[in-house]
């Protein structure tokens, strides 16, 4: 692989890291508009990060090395995931390191480390958050896997760049009903995994309603900054996976020049704007589910994904 390909690989990674807080800020803005509030500026998350990095870390006296290293590990898993997902270009030499199934595994690694770190300090809320997060996690993994299966059935590969290439190179427009089901299931999984309504309220202050937030209660300073950044990166990554599978138009293919790449970045930003607004809309019109209704929600997602697979076998073979 050429040096430019590696350069674009690193560039895409850095772009993801840079854009993720902006995306989170945009979603927050849309939510505020929908709730008739005035929103903080779009770059507020960057200011939050800067503030947190400057602060000292207030570490619990009996926190272990696992607690201190978990933010770095979680951030690293999200960055590696960003390197694998083709958000701007499919010319990613390192994307062969892991296909979509390994991507799910990488996300799982992040989740497990977060949960272990939450249990490390030994508070009631930490272990509660860990338990709830693992419960949500174990229900979303099969659903996500079935969504990827449907994609594999439709496109013949579990490597995401290859999926994009197959879609962009096909001569006619192909509408896949199975992907329609898979898309609905994917959105439901996205909401659950990224701690969004209706599964979890990202702006709650009530500890007993928290799932993701309660795992981060003990973090401060640069650790908290890394964890927040990792959470925003996770949302960004999931959005990019959604674009790759269901709306890949605009992504530059192998051998594209700088002009097409600039176009690809523009397309990505446009898609993120629309996706962020849609996400805010979805969050604003649904109420938070009771904790034990969340498994029903996720079972529905799983079933829709399986239905997509079955519909593919029925209609598209």
């Amino acid at each position: 692989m050429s040096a430019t390909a590696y350069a674009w690989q690193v560039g895409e990674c850095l772009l993801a890291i840079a854009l993720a807080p902006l995306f989170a800020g945009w979603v927050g803005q849309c939510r505020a508009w929908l709730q008739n509030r005035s929103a903080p500026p779009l770059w507020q998350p960057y200011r939050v990060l800067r503030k947190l990095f400057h602060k000292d870390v207030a570490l619990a006296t009996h926190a272990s090395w696992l607690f201190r290293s978990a933010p770095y590990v979680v951030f690293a898993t999200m960055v590696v995931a960003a390197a694998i997902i083709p958000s701007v270009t499919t010319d990613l030499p390192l994307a062969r390191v892991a296909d979509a199934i390994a991507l799910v595994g990488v996300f799982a690694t992040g989740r497990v480390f977060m949960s272990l770190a939450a249990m490390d300090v030994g508070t009631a809320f930490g272990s509660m958050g860990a338990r709830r997060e693992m419960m949500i996690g174990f229900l979303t993994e099969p659903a996500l896997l079935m969504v990827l299966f449907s994609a594999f059935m439709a496109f013949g590969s579990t490597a995401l760049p290859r999926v994009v290439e197959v879609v962009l190179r096909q001569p006619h427009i192909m509408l896949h009903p199975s992907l329609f089901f898979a898309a609905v299931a994917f959105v439901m999984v996205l909401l659950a995994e990224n701690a969004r309504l209706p599964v979890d309220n990202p702006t709650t202050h009530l500890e007993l309603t928290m799932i993701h937030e309660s795992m981060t209660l003990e973090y401060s300073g640069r650790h908290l900054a890394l964890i927040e950044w990792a959470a925003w990166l996770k949302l960004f990554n999931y959005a990019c996976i959604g674009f790759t599978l269901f709306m890949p138009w605009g992504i530059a293919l192998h051998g594209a020049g700088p002009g097409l790449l600039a176009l690809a970045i523009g397309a990505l930003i446009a898609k993120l704007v629309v996706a962020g607004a849609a996400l805010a809309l979805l969050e604003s019109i649904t109420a938070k589910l009771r904790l034990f209704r969340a498994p029903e929600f996720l079972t529905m997602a799983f079933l829709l994904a399986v239905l997509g697979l079955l519909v593919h076998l029925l209609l598209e073979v």
Partner: protein
Amino acid sequence: MNGIASTTALTALLGLIAAWLVLGALGLARPNSIRWVARTLFPVGALIALGVAGAGAVALTAHFSAQTAVLPLGLPSLHFHVRLDALSGFFLLLLGIAGAGISVFAAGYFRAGEGTAPGMMGLQYHLFLASMALVILADDAYMFMVAWETMALSSYFLVVTQHRLPEIRRAGFLYLLMAHVGALGILLCFGVLQGGSWLMTFDAMRGATLAPAWASAAFVLALLGFGAKAGLVPLHVWLPEAHPAAPSPVSAMMSGLMLKVAVYGMLRVSWDLLHAGPWWWGLLTLGVGLGTAMYGAIFAAVQTDMKRLLAYSSIENIGLIFAGIGLALLCRSFDMRLLAALALAAALIHSFNHALFKSLLFLATGSVMHATGERSLGKLGGLIRYMPWVAGLALIGSLAIAGLPPLNGFVSEWLLLQAFLQTPQIPHAFLNMIVPLGAAIVSLTAALAGYVMVKFYGVVFLGQPRERALEQAHPAGWLERTGLSWLALGCVLVGVFPQVALDVVGRITGQLVGATVQRGPSPWWMTPLASNQASYSGLWLWAGLVLVVAATFVLVRRFYHGRVRRTPAWDCGYRWQTPRMQDSAEGFGQPIRHLFGPVFRMQRELPLPSDPQPQYRVQIEEHFWHALYLPLSRFVLRTAERVTILQGGRLATYLLYSFLTLILLLVWVL
């Protein structure tokens, strides 16, 4: 040269196994001396295990052809036949590598006062190892059964090491009973397989052609027999009792090694001795495997005893292995060879992985038990500070079981899922829709395994100590650490070099299925199908993660600072936090208990609001006990009581029996 190497390998192997037996006998020379038995003999046993692994590895090299020999032991008309081929070589490699780590750990672990004299235990231990190796090498049914029974007996004695406790004796009895039920199934299976020739050698069985009904009967008997030993539901009830009752190195051996010997038996019978069968064989095995996996995972999530949790986790992993075998059988019956090879490769690699990480975890619990004296999860916690080595190595083991990249558990899971991805090609109308759903169950099981491991590791090692006495916990000795490190290293290496594992297993699939999974471009990349379809590299993933962690660390320190201030935990400003306010084991398992309520048989005592000292009790049992085993045992006892009527006690009755038999025989003959 290859022929010489092959025969040398087999002879060396037999010599090493004999050395184990000698070692065990030497332990009886000074039976009560820990220094002689544990510190001297066990490390030698570990070296012998490494030798066995080496001989097994020779069998897996490219041009090895199967070697057989006939030993001058056994019956006059049926000597012991032994055979070393790729399949037995692989399992010997597994036995040797994991056995070496366990023996080194056991050298540092055993101490006086356990119940049985150390010399006796040394004899039983090495007899156990030797009999497992002999089962793997056996090439005729007689030797197989002799070695199998020796394995069962020696492990029984090991399980009841602390035989003064009644619950341990009870667990041992249950274990022995189920082992013999399984052995009966296997014996009947061999009886069917010989197909009328009455020659009990495996060569004869390979050549025999059986009617389809008899072949299916043999298959079902094999599944029952080997499944009872491996721990398939519903024949698994002995596992959660026997594994916790045994000392930790023995639990590790039983879970890591003995269950794999059962898997070996299943593979030998269904792939080598039986030829391709109807598709329902594969579907049955797949279904039983997936059901077992889910069952084990669900029950593991609600356990409160460390070792019972790990025992149920073993059931779950065995279920996954059998699911892989079932998928391979299914594909073989449709003549989809590459897919069968892929599924079989996944099952074999998972067996190897499980031997490594399950032994690692059982041994770690042994260290914890020695250091703290506690087995219940409700009394542990915070051990990462007092036992840092054990905690670190147990972390590797826990992450490996949870199937997280870039460790070894993920490799076998990835392969299994890739195999499932190809199943919609099956040319059968309903199967091509039902079998892909197995992938969802595999994924659900894997995610549940993650849940279980977070519970296990979090409650034992993280948080604050739930009892004050835990602060006296002492770290593990150097022998224990060496054993644990050896196994952890294995986990990491298989995760980093997955293609090597795939190549090694390829020899076996080539021999059994007739197809090998594609060779990847290098040992660090795994591309089992086409490289543009799916690829994975453990090494590059490791490298990527480490690089990003290091870069982030350095950059943050460079642009900002690395200051830390130690304060009490925040806990939302609640000042009266005590260690008992953390999640208990029951608490952490509560979501699973709630979601899968009907699967358990629960008895709960809920406190009333008016109780001055409220207490909450929950007892979780399996339905199988009350629905299947207790009625069965009651039936057996009732029948036995009725039969005792025959024993009248009076002399006249017995004389009458003899008289009647004589008359009957006279009538029949004349």
